[in-house]
């Protein structure tokens, strides 16, 4: 099958790649752009390990085709820190030890940032429901929820 030329923006940079029309955005990010921070935990949109935003909308990149990124703006975990300066969510994840094996962590951070972009002052219940799309097998979620609440408080100032 012939490949399709895709031009898109990833973490602010214009990038190009050739995609098989059946390839997922997740595979394109990982295999063509070398951005392996987004992970495949299920491939069916149930675990959130592949969370990225496309034009500001939180998506499971395993359920988006690479060719759909044409002309869009994609942000991934690799774009979260700014020139090495960590985002408050990243800092609070470390403060609270809100990660263990780290595999689901990029997805949680991307999803949590999407929440705080929308709702800077979420309740604990709102945080838990928003993050219910992301599976973590290590932490039992409590420290993740605390880290997101703390980051939100810091960002509100």
């Amino acid at each position, binding site marked *: 099958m012939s490949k399709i030329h895709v031009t898109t923006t990833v973490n602010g940079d214009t990038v190009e790649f050739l995609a098989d029309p059946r390839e997922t955005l997740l595979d394109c990010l990982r295999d063509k752009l070398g951005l392996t921070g987004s992970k495949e935990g299920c491939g069916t949109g149930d675990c959130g390990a592949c969370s990225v935003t496309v034009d500001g909308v939180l998506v499971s990149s395993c359920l988006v085709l690479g060719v759909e990124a044409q002309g869009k703006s994609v942000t991934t975990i690799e774009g979260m820190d700014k020139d090495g300066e960590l985002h408050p969510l990243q800092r609070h994840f470390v403060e609270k030890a809100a990660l263990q094996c780290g595999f689901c*962590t990029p997805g949680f951070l991307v999803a949590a940032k999407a929440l705080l972009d929308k709702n800077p002052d979420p309740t604990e219940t709102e945080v838990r429901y928003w*993050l219910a799309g992301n599976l973590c097998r290590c932490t039992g*979620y409590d420290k993740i929820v605390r880290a997101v609440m703390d980051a939100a408080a810091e960002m509100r100032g």
Partner: protein
Amino acid sequence: MNANVGIGARVKRKEDRRFITGKGKYTDDVRVENQAYAAFVRSPHAHARVKSIDTSAALAAEGVIDVLNGKQLTGDGIGNIICGWAITSKDGSPMNMGPWSALATDRVRYVGDAVAVVVAESAAVARRAAELVEVDYEVLPGVSSAVKAMNKGAPQVHDNAPGNLIYDWEIGDAAATDAALAKAAHVTELCLTNNRLAPNPMETRSAVAIYDESEDHYTLYTTSQNPHVARLVLSAFYNVAPEHKLRVIAPDVGGGFGSKIYIYPEEITCLWASMKTGRSVKWTSDRSEAFMTDAHGRDHSSVAKIGFDANNRIVGLKVDTVANFGAYMSLFSSAVPTYLYATLLSGQYDIANIHCNVRAVYTNTVPVDAYRGAGRPEACYLVERIIETAARELKVDPAELRRTNFIRSFPHQTPVIMNYDVGDFDANLEQAIKAADVAGFAKRKAASAKAGKLRGLGYSSYIEACGIAPSAAVGSLGAGVGLWESAEVRVNPVGTIEILTGSHSHGQGHETTFAQIVAERFDLPIENISIVHGDTDKVQFGMGTYGSRSGAVGMSAIVRAMDKVEAKVKKIAAHVLEASEDDIVIEGGQVKVAGTDKAMGWHEVGLSAYTAHNLPPDMEPGLKESAFYDPANFTFPAGTYICEVEVDPETGAVRIDRFTASDDFGTIINPMIVEGQVHGGIAQGIGQALLEQVIYDENGQLITGSYMDYAMPRADDLPSYSVHHASTVCPNNPLGIKGCGEAGAIGSPPAVINAITDAIGNNNLSMPATPLAVWKALQAAGK
């Protein structure tokens, strides 16, 4: 002393920077030149004869490099997959281990059993070509329930295991226990199932196998909790390559929970296929393959009887357990329902007579092996459910019944092998009762009732055997390996330190915790210490991480190696500073003569060791020492968990209102990391109690093959946890550590079920307590 980074400090995890920035390097992130990809052709049947395999269409597909089958694999001398722990039946006969080839040759025995592998230029091409492989199966009847597999006329999984029986094993004194129960003032009987679980680390299994023809050498990147064990087994038993020609690297590993201890068919096949094709071969499991092929956990059916005298003291416990092993015996499967289970049936209680019989049974399901806790959750669930049930029957407070029977004198020899070294079970119980505000429960229950809800409270006082394990002891019980750990401490010429450890971190935070004990011992900045693990070419040897052993065994090995380094440092300094070794102290980055101003920098000692210009006579240059540490005994973490639930009688939905834990882990190095281990363990235990269940249909077809069918606990399902410690120091290892990795998963399920059954007034409730199950139990109780 370096108080802010040493033992007891909440040091932020050194490894986190790479994970929070998406720079973690897991096996599937490994990129090598000339990469080819594998996809497996798997049986869609639970049980079938393989009549023929036609690979011609797949071989002809564009981008396919080769298609390989089981006859080629066995023809190349690749050995069968083995179980590494020999269990002897009570009649003296050995266990019946059926043959397990990495690629099935003539018969498939569970859905997902691999029969061929396609190697292609891309993963997508390999997967599509796998569907072009035509396998002609003669479908045979299958069986998924262990109890039914023992019935006369049930399908036979292996020809050499009549009645599907692998072993029929016992522990304890049957006659004495029967006699004690016959004389008991009260006997409580309970039938229990321990539901089958899928471990589900978020990173699925993966392998990158690289064969270097010029050196006849193999490298395997893989998702392993124990890369040296993987290399040993791949070499000694599967004949893939001798150990000196095989390097196994387990880089960042995304959780294990037991499921990444074993060496599976796919990893073996990828190594062999890389030699066959001359290409590096990569395979990453998708989630449905993980449900089909990762070793499952639990799946016990038990009947238990416990007897009490007139003073409510336990006089005997008798247990009969049937354990489902799946279609093949996985690496440590045989030890799980025997020495990791029945030896813990004394719980925290002084019980003079215990007898347990275990029948291990083949079925047409994926193999069952250790999953977080491994046998100990099954023991704890049984003991803590039956004691709570007995308390209700005896109409005594469940905490009081526990107090009446607690072991209070140590060491304590149980009738089932274990010798508990130390503990203070009352301290944990009382701490949990206070923290959970049990005193306020009646008031909260009344408030719930007013709102139309049912509130219940349940206890679980668990004990487990960790720090696995004294090698001679496990050897005498049938283990094929020793369970020591090794470490190497390298002080570099500039004074920085590398610790090479045979433990493997796949979420446990070893890079931080292990560095803390070194920073404290040598009073150095933690940044100057790095932990190296997960690579057989770097680390001398290791038995890996499972059974909550990295602290008690892995760190003990580091301590022993540090002892040797310290002795050498003192000798060098005494020589250079012209003082007695006994007067040398190490502090503040310096090696000093106590009570004088004579000192040299820590880095100067390192440099002296390597320049070797002025060393004591006969001293070898260099400053690196290694140690192997073999534990003297198991360790016995213990504690009490209290769960309080509110049940909606209209829907059967359970909400966990509060979950309180009081644990005794011995010495705690990093409380923040330990809390995380407890949280995660409790979450998995609550998952087992409320949500999770692997379901096969009667014939062995897998029903729960995705996250749409298998309910994983999510952030909105779980509470915040109230976690506390009341510790006694373990006398059997240098740091006094007991281990914390499995406690949460062991202790929590009975607390949850005891709470729900208390709320609904019906003790007949199995895990998982889904809303439907709870609602049905409520209807049965007429509520």
